[in-house]
């Protein structure tokens, strides 16, 4: 029955389309539901894609850097720093390692202590900036070597705070995808209700069609075709308006943070094109289900 309905949908049948009377509120309900859901789906898709990009970026940026902090008595600081740099140069996966200068360390503390802090008089730990190769290094192995050769060294590979950030962005992406699924399910429910209403309102038409020898597949197809095209048009209009809304969002910027990056990028702009056909597929399945159930009930 589904294969027949699908081929009938694609082939079309003007004579059959005339058989089912034009319906008022169910047509408007389907168009509105598909339009609203298409609009919301664009935003859910944009959210999902943007959070996916964010998760990837954070994971990538944070994964490729680490910090070594050396806390040692002043007379051992230089020796331990050199020893640490020596260990790092010999560690596979470390692209470069550089001890921060006093000026750079002072700049890092300026937001908290102001520009007049006499850093040279304070026992501030020495920081070493490590840049990893794309393959990365074995953090556990490096820690073991450092503990043996540089007792005052503490390695911070950013895992502690990178993981929750990446997890948060990943969950946001999942939330976006779940939203799209829920939007599809809500659309299916509304179109099923509209189709049920249309089928019930046309019970007499169905009776006449059966009287003259119409198969249930033919009757169902007439309704399915109508609702599928309404959903396609509604979702297309909704998706178009949604894309216009996304276009009106501010451009991504560092100052704006995450919210200004909420949109599409690159090939992502083509993804909303999938929303109208998906809306039509949802309507096709939902109306087919409603039609088969109602026709069984009317027999």
């Amino acid at each position, binding site marked *: 029955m589904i294969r027949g309905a699908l081929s009938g949908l694609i082939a079309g049948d003007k004579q059959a389309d005339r*058989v089912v009377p034009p319906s008022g509120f169910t047509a408007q309900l389907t168009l509105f539901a598909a339009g609203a859901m298409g609009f919301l789906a664009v935003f859910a898709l944009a959210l999902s894609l943007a959070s996916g990009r964010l998760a990837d970026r954070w994971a990538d940026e944070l994964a490729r850097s680490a910090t070594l902090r050396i806390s040692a008595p002043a007379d051992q600081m230089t020796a331990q720093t050199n020893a640490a740099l020596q260990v790092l140069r010999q560690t596979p996966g470390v692209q470069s390692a550089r001890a921060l200068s006093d000026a750079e360390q002072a700049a890092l503390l300026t937001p908290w202590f102001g520009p007049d802090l006499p850093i040279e008089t304070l026992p501030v730990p020495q920081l070493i900036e490590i840049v990893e190769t794309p393959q990365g290094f074995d953090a556990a192995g490096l820690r073991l070597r450092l503990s043996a050769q540089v007792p005052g060294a503490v390695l911070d590979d950013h895992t502690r705070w990178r993981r929750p950030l990446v997890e948060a962005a990943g969950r946001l992406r999942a939330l976006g995808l779940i939203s799209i699924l829920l939007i599809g399910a809500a659309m299916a429910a509304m179109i099923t209700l509209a189709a049920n209403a249309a089928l019930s309102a046309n019970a007499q038409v169905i009776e*006449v069609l059966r*009287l003259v020898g119409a198969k249930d597949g033919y009757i169902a197809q007439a309704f399915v075709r109508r609702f599928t095209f309404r959903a396609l048009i509604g979702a297309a209009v909704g998706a178009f308006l949604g894309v216009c809304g996304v276009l009106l969002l501010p451009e991504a910027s560092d100052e704006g943070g995450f919210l200004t990056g909420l949109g599409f990028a690159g090939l992502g702009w083509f993804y909303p094109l999938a929303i109208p056909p998906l809306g039509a597929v949802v309507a096709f399945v939902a109306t087919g289900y409603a039609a088969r159930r109602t026709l069984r009930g009317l027999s």
Partner: protein
Amino acid sequence: MIELDNIAYSYGGAELLSEISIRLTPGSFHFLTGPSGAGKTTLLKLCYGALLPTSGQVRLFDTDMRRLDRDQIALMRRRIGVVHQDCRFLDHLTLAENVALPLTVSGRDLAAEAGNLGELLNWVGLSARSDALPPELSGGERQRAALARAVIMSPDLVLADEPTGNVDWDMSQRLLQLLVELNRMGKTVLIASHDLALIRAAKTQVQARVLRISNRRLQLAGADL
């Protein structure tokens, strides 16, 4: 053609028909009569598969109706023309589209059938009204259109349920004449009617067998008919 073998039909716990056995042979002409509520319409519905008997067997074109699924019943109905008292048109379609509805639902090319449709409308005297919508038609026009729709697939069997119930005497005679013509073309005709005058008039034109439903059972009508 059609055979009802000891059928009974109950609805809501009440038995409406009982011990009904009839056999309509090809080319025969039958009337089914009885008082209102006797079960004439129910018996016709059993004949075209709109209802299934509670017990007994309905054989249509040598096929047990119980063995057919809904699609097979639909195909079977294309071989049966049914005329209802209330005609049952689709009000958003024109008269010609309504008459052609059996062709439409069976996937026939209407353009190729246009000649047949025109001849049929001419036969029932409705050529000039082909573009009218059903609510614009008179009772007689509706009944003639319903008859045209019933025979457009050239069925072997024509079932008519009170086809003259909503028309005057002259129009009922015209409709009867059309049904008699169909019978002369070889169609089997079964008409449910409580109009005894119509039945008497028919018997002067065609060899008709009259069956009467009384007390849920079917019997051959007496010599008064």
